[in-house]
């Protein structure tokens, strides 16, 4: 009798295990490993919200290959060491893909783990070095510095016709990458970099840094820092009566920066790979949905997270099965049409390194709002020849 009970128990356990396995196969687990505190809190929070909104939409529409997506979120505290540990934890939990970290310094450390485990890893990090290490599992959801800096350098030298430029940068992987790239791209132009001013992540008082920029006598300032610091820099520039152009890339003109800097943000010019104010119906739809969901306007990081999930969806559906290796391979060279996958918002091409190509925007902050002044075409428009036109790149057209 006792033996029969034991057998029954074993059978019940086996049934439960099978049921559990069957249940696991019904979901696609993804891990959000992002900066929810520390210097990257704004970036990470937006990125996470973007990912979660896309997941909610995809699940409501039936999931991917009929399977729902399940997300977990962890805070890196903007610390590369913590990010690495959390990535290892996500791998132990057998996730299908990893989203984040957003900070370049963190992803540079953590992506070694996702590569070893052969798990696709999507990042919002922009440092050029991220995709230059031959990691087949790393994918950007935004431009890297190698794609965006030629565009902003061209604006500085050819459009704004700046003769001398002061560069104010945050002293981390992201900032140093920006400094190297702006110098590299301006090397053979009429613009000379006359001052390189290093600042700290989390710095509060920028009076000395701004004074150094003023002392350099430069015609314009290129400011490349994180969101909160960018806002403080803009306020200090205004405080010290800086009346020359302030130019930046992506972070300088973000929504959070405008909110924090107030009037001091007016007049700042930036190149952005992504903006909720892009003249594109899908982007504007995203802006409205995000606002409805979170009661604030998303910055570019929200779009990075959101489109990243749709990139994964497109790749899984192309492969037709849940195979991480095959999905990573499919992502390389993939051109995703916004007509077929509206969630990518704008037609996008992913190259062999995991870098993106798509249209981008020059923006200026006017009356506390980001206004797109120029739509810039993709670096390689021929890639998009076969893609449908909806939301696709337009030739550069000055408004």
């Amino acid at each position, binding site marked *: 009798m006792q033996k029969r009970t034991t057998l029954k128990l074993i059978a019940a356990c086996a049934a439960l295990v099978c049921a559990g396995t069957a249940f696991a196969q019904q979901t696609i687990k993804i891990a959000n490993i992002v900066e929810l505190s520390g210097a990257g809190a704004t970036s990470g929070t937006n990125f996470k919200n973007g990912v979660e909104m896309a997941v909610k939409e995809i699940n409501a529409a039936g999931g991917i290959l009929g399977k729902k997506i399940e997300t977990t979120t962890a805070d890196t505290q903007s610390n590369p060491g913590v990010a690495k540990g959390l990535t290892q934890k996500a791998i132990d939990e057998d996730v299908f893909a990893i989203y984040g970290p957003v900070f370049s310094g963190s992803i540079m450390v953590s992506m070694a783990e996702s590569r070893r485990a052969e798990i696709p890893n999507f990042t919002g990090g922009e440092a050029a070095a991220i995709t230059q290490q031959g990691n087949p599992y790393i994918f950007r959801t935004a431009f890297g510095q190698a794609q965006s800096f030629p565009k902003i350098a061209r604006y500085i030298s050819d459009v704004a016709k700046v003769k001398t430029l002061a560069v104010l940068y945050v002293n981390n992987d992201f900032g140093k990458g920006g400094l190297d790239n702006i110098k590299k791209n301006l090397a053979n132009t009429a613009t000379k970099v006359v001052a390189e001013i290093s600042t700290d992540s989390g710095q509060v008082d920028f009076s000395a840094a701004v*004074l150094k920029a003023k002392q350099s006598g430069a015609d314009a300032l290129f400011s490349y820092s994180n969101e909160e610091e960018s806002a403080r820099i803009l306020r200090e520039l205004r405080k010290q009566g800086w009346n020359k152009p302030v130019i930046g890339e992506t972070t300088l003109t973000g929504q959070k920066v405008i909110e924090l800097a107030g009037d001091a943000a007016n007049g700042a010019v930036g190149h952005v790979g992504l903006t909720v104010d892009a003249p594109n119906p899908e982007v504007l739809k995203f802006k409205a949905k995000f606002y409805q969901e979170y009661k604030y306007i998303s910055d570019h990081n929200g779009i990075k997270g959101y489109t990243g999930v749709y990139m994964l969806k497109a790749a899984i559906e192309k492969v037709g099965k849940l195979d991480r290796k095959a999905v990573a391979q499919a992502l390389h060279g993939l051109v995703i049409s916004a007509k077929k996958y509206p969630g990518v918002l704008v037609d996008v091409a992913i190259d062999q390194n995991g870098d993106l190509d798509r249209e981008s925007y020059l923006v200026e902050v006017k009356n506390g709002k980001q206004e797109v002044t120029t739509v810039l075409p993709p670096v390689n428009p021929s890639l998009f020849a076969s893609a449908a036109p909806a939301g696709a790149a337009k030739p550069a057209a000055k408004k």
Partner: protein
Amino acid sequence: MTDFLQLLFSGMATGAIYGLAALGFTLLWQASGTINFAQGEFVMLPAFMMLAFMSMGAPLLVSFGLSALVAVVVLGWVFKRGIVDPLFKYGMMPIVVATIGLSISMRSVIRAGYSAEASPFPSLFADKLYNIAGVTITLADVGTFVLAIALVFATQAFMTKTVTGRAMQAVAQNTESASVLGINVPRMIFYAFAINAVLAVAAALLVTPTYLAKFDMGESLGNKAFFAAIIGGFNNSRGALLGGLIVGICENLAAAYISPAYKDAVALVIFMVVILFKPQGLLGKKEERKV
């Protein structure tokens, strides 16, 4: 020279805020012999209180007044009764450890309950710039400096010129003797905590437009204020102001003339130099226990 003056004025405004926060350290030390390592968070919390009142429609100054009332209860009475009183009999170290724990808890609660992101905070002063001989000065800088100095001197005057203030100092120097002299010891200690809470709200009002309201805004402010208090003299209110000004100005000058990378180390270096040659601080006096 213009650049030097620009850095000097900017540093004075920042330094005055450090001085105001440092005053909290010296006040609690003088009146109750307590060191509060959550002083930076005591400035952070009122910033969020004011934001909360403003989100309910209250103007900035009304929010300040309401926050001061709440702070007297929470950062004054609750802090004293809940942490300092039960631990006082065990000496200084448990209180220090408890306040460090309190600072971590306060940061965590705001981060989890509100947001980890920074929020803008309105300035008490109009957005006006003045250009005097090539030096740009904002009304906010001047206002911050004047208000901070006024608060420091008012507190100093209260502590030294009034009967209540002297009674508070007597309690700190010798509780038993003060009690024998008929001073209401618990009340005097509570006054110190209440004044510290109000000063923290004032510091929050002045500092948050620059620091932005964020759960970790008190971290560096608390450290700088602590160094400033020691540099100036832990038992002297004017010393707190002097220490704050020294740290604020030297930081700015070092960032401009040496490197911004070493800016945050300046307070630590001055602190070490001062305690090597004058352990009691620049204006501090050697402790003499008398009533």
